[in-house]
């Protein structure tokens, strides 16, 4: 059986209008295609370039304001490329109860950023996430789509070292 490796959210291809249009058009025959389109663009480029807004608006025959409104409503959609790696630390109650807060502070101190920031060397973006569904194994984190639980200082250091390589 194949191992499931969810795709990382760090950037790949540089912004390309034609490539963006191709990805947009793959979803036009679906009902409610906007979210699948935005996911496809973010998967392709690592973020959703502002130049994508008028393209999507024209293809879906909706206003650019509507597209912009949707992109900015959802926490997942990024307006600029993230670092080479994306480290999400769970900040929700189950992880708080299991010592997640000191770990989050340690990660911020080690990377020299606040939650949502990218390390100066561009290696890693640190983000909060509100629940990964690993609450019986708290605290938990996700590095580029790979889940890690029963996080302690040692495991966190290993994750940070991996992300900064």
């Amino acid at each position: 059986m194949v191992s499931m490796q969810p795709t990382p959210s760090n950037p790949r291809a540089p912004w390309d209008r034609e490539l963006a249009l191709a990805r947009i058009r793959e979803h036009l025959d679906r009902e409610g295609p906007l979210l699948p389109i935005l996911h496809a663009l973010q998967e392709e480029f690592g973020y959703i370039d502002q130049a994508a807004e008028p393209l999507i608006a024209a293809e879906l025959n909706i206003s650019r304001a509507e597209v912009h409104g949707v992109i900015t409503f959802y926490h997942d959609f990024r307006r600029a490329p993230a670092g080479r790696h994306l480290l999400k630390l769970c900040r929700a109650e189950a992880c708080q109860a299991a010592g997640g807060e000191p770990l989050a502070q340690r990660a911020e101190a080690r990377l020299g950023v606040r939650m949502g920031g990218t390390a100066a060397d561009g290696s890693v973006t640190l983000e909060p996430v509100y629940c990964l569904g690993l609450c019986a194994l708290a605290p938990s984190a996700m590095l580029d789509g790979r889940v890690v639980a029963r996080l302690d200082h040692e495991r966190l250091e290993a994750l940070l070292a991996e992300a900064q390589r």
Partner: protein
Amino acid sequence: MTLRLYIPIDAGALAVGAEEVAAAIRAAAARQAVALDIVRTGSRGLYWLEPMVEAQTPAGRIAYGPVAADDAEGLLRAIATDGPHPLRLGRTDDLPWLKRQTRLTFARCGVVDPRSLADYRAHDGCRGLARALSLGPEATVEAVVQSGLRGRGGAGFPTGIKWRTAAQTQAPQKYIVCNADEGDSGTFADRMIMEGDPFVLIEGMAIAGIAVGATKGYVYIRSEYPHAAATMEAAIAAARQGGLLGDRVGDSSFAFDMEVRVGAGAYVCGEETSLLDSLEGKRGLVRAKPPLPAHKGLFGRPTVVNNVLSFAAVPLILDKGAAFYRDFGMGKSRGTMPIQLAGNIKHGGLFETAFGITLGELVDDVGGGTRSGRPVRAVQVGGPLGAYFPRALFDTPFDYEAFAAREGLIGHGGIVVFDDTVDMAKQARFAMEFCAIESCGKCTPCRIGSTRGMEVIDRIIRNENRAANTALLEDLCHTLKFGSLCALGGFTPYPVMSALTYFPEDFGAPPRLQAAE
């Protein structure tokens, strides 16, 4: 002889090294020249024992855990020779934590290969669908009504009534929507079903489609669950190939197909009308009700929106009959509830049992208290919008009405345990902060009141006009509760007010007298 092992591919097991364990066991088997067949399953839900490896023996499956990659060599030798091993837990079916459960919805989770329709059928799968097809749509809806099943997402609305309403609404197109936007901290039962027994959800949705006359379904899965989405995609493809979905569902004249849609990190999209807007490609704004989704839902069409666990309960209800399911439970809470034990807890995981078990039994007895070994001080039941209960309320039975009577909610069945190091003023502040981050912005009390709430709690913590600010916080919570369209604004007062009521000393007030509740 080929040795058959079962190793979970559930995200929780993967997060603590199940993949590394599987690889190490394969390598050890090659070195020891043992013929090996590894089946990847969902999790049994005993997360403190993950990664848990099971071996097929003539006496049934034998469990070992928690296994580390370094254990592979010795473990494999012990399994192959049926010898002793420090991690040997005994027959899985005899594990006390599993034995005292009533696994109806989770009967197959951790047992079957989640991507094999043949395995699903071999374990009583598709029998509910067959029964629904022989009963016909009306009797199918009636069976769900009679079972007493209530929405497992949190609101507890009778599932059958929703179905009946949608069935009786005439429209050229109707939809079945599964709410798999399981955003409550402390909950993971939906994720486990999607990763461990996805066909039961597909079957439940197909039955719903036949019952109400809908031909199209969507599973809206949160983006934080990539493994669940991948397994659902694979299972849907297998279901199409195997005739469980398509133009002739189960060789009948009914058509039903479905697809996965992935959310984008908005907690509020777990609210059903916000979810529908999101599916339509809009900002996930909450809609006013009426119109009910069963009348005007997705794209304005009649739509049944149910939680994963609600749909997953349906095949069994059809197969065994409404009375079988209804006979479990208490009061108006019928059947079983998959309860999730989480946070600072010794034995965390999935515990499915009939309604009626007390909170204290769940936390102290089943959960074994805290993992830190310190005393339990508070538990939050029902996610970020659920109340914090002190030990004084541990006699509350797990039942929709019993929790509501004590200004709490069971929600989606998550219990997060905190030890005595918790600062309840900080938790109350977090409830407001979370509401501020996740508010869709439609209702003013939720959009603005949550930020004002954080500020007021900060003032209380700093002892600025404490009495006046406490009164202001209570007033603000009242406004939120009665001035919000959905549960995000409406229920945020539960964690805030329960923290203030039961743990006043954390807000600088004298402790509450230990009077009987």
